[in-house]
């Protein structure tokens, strides 16, 4: 049977089509102000990629901030459960999921594919993808470049401000004082990792640790988290679609969790 998972996040919409435990296709798009429209479009585009007709999809589950706005979904499940299920599907040995999204970040403790405990940061943009966006902008760099630039650094500049707005001023002042860009970027990755690790410690970190969400694509952040945790962190091939994948897995089981 074919099932679909649609994850409407704060910045991007993701759709995964799953058939007999195999990913048929997926698509990532930008979220538009009209969430219903975004959901329909990302679903249709994924169907097109997989060359599958709508009628062939037997069950659709939605997740993410916009989950309740996906009218054609059979059920809405929170991204917390979906990330745990999606990560367990890809890496069955997972015990801790660290998801860094565009607007929030969360650490989820997982046991046999189920959520045991979770903590979320949705109050402060430091520790989320938004922090990296603001910093990339301040440095006139592309978001995607940050990771590889950070990897070139021999040492890191310490970003002391815990607030995105003040950290941006701090970065600008480092630029004015002539610090190397790669060292500033490495410092930025380190700052976001510090917030995440502080949160992860509250839940308790157990191996394997899987990093999901768009920020997981940033090698600099991954490396900084590994250094702080003192253990390796696994990143799925496409970390951004883990929530949507989890929703598709749950839809294929046709039950809640």
């Amino acid at each position, binding site marked *: 049977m074919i099932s679909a998972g649609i994850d409407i996040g704060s910045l991007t919409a993701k759709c995964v089509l799953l058939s007999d435990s195999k990913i048929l296709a997926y698509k990532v798009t930008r979220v538009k102000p009209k969430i219903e429209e975004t959901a329909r479009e990302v679903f249709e585009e994924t169907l097109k990629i997989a060359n599958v007709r709508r009628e062939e999809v037997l069950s659709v589950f939605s997740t993410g901030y916009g989950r309740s706005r996906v009218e054609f979904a059979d059920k809405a499940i929170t991204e917390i459960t979906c990330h745990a299920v999606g990560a367990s599907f890809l890496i069955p040995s997972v015990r801790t999921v660290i998801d860094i999204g565009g607007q929030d970040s969360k650490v989820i403790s997982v046991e046999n594919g189920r959520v045991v405990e979770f903590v979320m940061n*949705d109050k402060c943009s430091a520790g989320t993808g938004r922090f990296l966006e603001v910093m990339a902008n301040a440095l006139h760099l592309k978001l995607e470049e940050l990771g590889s630039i950070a990897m070139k650094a021999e040492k890191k500049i310490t970003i002391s401000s815990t607030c995105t707005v003040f950290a941006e001023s701090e970065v600008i002042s480092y630029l004015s004082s002539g610090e190397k860009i790669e060292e500033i970027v490495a410092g930025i990755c380190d700052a976001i990792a510090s917030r995440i690790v502080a949160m992860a410690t509250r839940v308790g970190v157990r191996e394997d640790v899987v990093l999901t969400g768009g920020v997981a694509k940033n090698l600099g952040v991954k490396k900084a988290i590994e250094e702080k945790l003192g253990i390796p962190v696994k990143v799925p091939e496409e970390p951004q679609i883990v929530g949507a994948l989890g929703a598709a897995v749950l839809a294929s089981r046709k039950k809640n969790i």
Partner: protein
Amino acid sequence: MRIGYFCTFTPKELIHSAGFLPFRIFATRKPISLASAYIQSYACSQVRGALEVALSDEFHGFVFTRSCDTLMRLTDILEFLGKRVYNIEFPTKIGNVDYYVYELRDFCKTLESWGGEISFERVIESLALYRELEEKLKKLFEVRADYEIAIKVQQIDVSGAIKLVEKKIEEAKKEEKPKILVTGSVCPYPEIYEIFTKAGFAIKDDLCTGRRFFEFNYPNFEPHDLDSALRFLAEKYFSKAPCPTKHYPNDYRFDYLLRLAEDCEAVVFLLVKFCEPHFFDFPQLREKLEEMGKKVALIELEFPVASTEQIRTRVEALKEVIG
């Protein structure tokens, strides 16, 4: 004439019997503006929001009972601004009834100086009316927790409040859902409670905008004069649902809360940011509740609540974890 009060330990019966309308002041839904001139942004938003209401609406006077430090400093600010303010020194350490009767006598004199009239008959009448309201609210909450009503009755005349609750009791239907205990200080926004019910929970609470307003153990004697009526009132408020700003013998509040949690699937601490008395108790309470096998979640609030969707995600995820 409205007398604004802030805390569920306030003897609203005396305010009512003096001929005033006791009106509980909650945080506003409007952005905090006037209050920012007098109170810093790292004070809790319940107090900041309450000051905004106190400064923008018409009140004949304000009554405080000793509770958290931030609320106590609100007394000073309103006094500084030339408002009619009285602070009842409710004992932090619960126990000395004689002392509190003395305090209540002073409060009666203040109410008279504000133009009110105090008599034994009227105090008895107010005691009876509030008891009726409290018992009816208790009955309503046994069937279905209704926070819109629990909040509303704190701002209207007690006789009208009783009628309103009676009507709600007739309409209320019990729902068989897993119970969740919501504990914290105040949450004057009914839509937050709706998040829990929509996620599939039945709410049991330990909040000033719920059970703490109406749960009392009443003394076992009939008052025969004004002094014994004040004694009745003192004992009534000494044995109400407890609050972390007070010191009780032994671990009374912890035991009370753990008992409330017994038949609940999970416990949510719905805490207002910077609410020290509640946050100080949180780590130990969480530990004890987890030892009982309860799932515990912390949700921080700031008034007015800007984004309910984040709260919804946490509550729904908690429901999914429980299964």
